[in-house]
């Protein structure tokens, strides 16, 4: 065990050294070309008054989020007291942003989602979703179906699936406050338990309840959009959580990469 710990520690150190050696640590420096989309509330915002009409992708992949209807645009705050005075993008329960499908947003056997946000505590609210429910669905990441202090992460077996094979954390694992959340999908693993994992502030949520179906070995290459703050508008489940930063990696992050990325977000969020 000691040997493993030392090896793991050395690995993390090597990765950190490599990343720091390139300059500022960012998702781009950590994941390189595997960074599919990267949204920062302190960069790339386009406003319609006080609401967000576009939120640009900082990964250089052009997966820009947009919302052309004012009534569905989330609110922007340059300094949000509820998220440690960081900038934020927040929906009011009827808002969402969407980005058209692209190759970087359609990974195959691995994917990792990171988010720095303040949970609304309301159940069944979407955080990030790819595809349209029952038509071109791929995956979802949301608050618990019946408990707002839980998280649910699901992966569809087919684009037509009207439910996703999902796993959910226990109540209380998605607590109030500014947190770093990470969902990892690894289709090369052999069981539901190892294919989907969720981390909060860097710590793995050990006990995940299994929802339905079987987590598939690969992701659906969905043509549907990426939605931030809702499922597709026909389903809703609009979020009222406060986002400061979120990014999607088109492969399974290693433990060392996850550690560095989590520390990056913790620093960004002042936690």
């Amino acid at each position, binding site marked *: 065990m000691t040997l493993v710990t030392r090896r793991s520690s050395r690995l993390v150190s090597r990765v950190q050294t490599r990343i720091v050696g390139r300059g500022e640590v960012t998702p781009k420096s950590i994941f390189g070309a595997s960074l599919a989309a990267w949204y920062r509330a302190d960069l790339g*915002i386009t406003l319609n008054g006080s609401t967000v009409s576009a939120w640009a992708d900082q990964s250089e992949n052009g997966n820009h989020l947009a919302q052309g209807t*004012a009534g569905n645009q989330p609110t*922007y705050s340059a300094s949000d007291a509820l998220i440690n005075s960081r900038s934020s993008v927040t929906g009011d329960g009827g808002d969402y942003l969407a980005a058209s499908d692209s190759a970087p947003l359609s990974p195959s056997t691995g994917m990792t989602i990171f988010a720095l946000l303040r949970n609304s505590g309301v*159940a069944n609210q979407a955080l990030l979703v790819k595809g349209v*429910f029952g038509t071109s669905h791929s995956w979802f990441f949301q608050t618990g179906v019946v408990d707002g202090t839980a998280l649910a992460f699901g992966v569809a077996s087919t684009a037509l699936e*009207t439910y996703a094979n*999902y796993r959910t954390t226990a109540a209380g694992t998605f607590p109030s406050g500014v947190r770093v959340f990470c969902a990892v999908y690894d289709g090369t693993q052999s069981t539901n338990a190892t294919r989907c994992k969720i981390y909060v502030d860097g710590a793995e949520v050990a006990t995940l309840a299994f929802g339905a179906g079987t987590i598939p070995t690969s992701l659906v290459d969905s043509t549907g959009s990426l939605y931030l703050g809702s499922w597709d*508008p026909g389903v809703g489940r609009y979020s009222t959580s406060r986002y400061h930063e979120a990014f999607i990696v088109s492969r399974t992050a290693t433990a060392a990469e996850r550690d560095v990325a989590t520390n990056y977000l913790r620093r960004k969020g002042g936690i």
Partner: protein
Amino acid sequence: MTDFTSTKLADVEAYCAIVSKAEGYPKAGVRVGGGIHAPPELGVTHRHVEPIKHPDRAEWRAPVDAKAVAAQTSKALTVAEKNSLSLAVASAKSIDASWEPKAIVDVEADSPPKELTEEPLDLKPE
């Protein structure tokens, strides 16, 4: 402050049209912060409000943020313009509107959460 709500689609359409016109939509977005920004065309707000149909009832609404703009707009309206608004609404009421909702958005905060296992909503316009 509550949404502008009516059982007559034409009323809400007339309301939305005037609010949108007064605000000069489509409206270009304003870039804030550094970094990469979305192309200008993605940041455009095309209309301030769209009539939104209640998912179950024969009821349409204009979202609350439109109401705020309407209140501002109201201050600038002359009596004649207000009369025009009334006439427009009255005229719209007399029309057998064949308008069909472009999108039905579930914005009901009190709607019960939908279980993950349920069937997808029927999005066909009524």
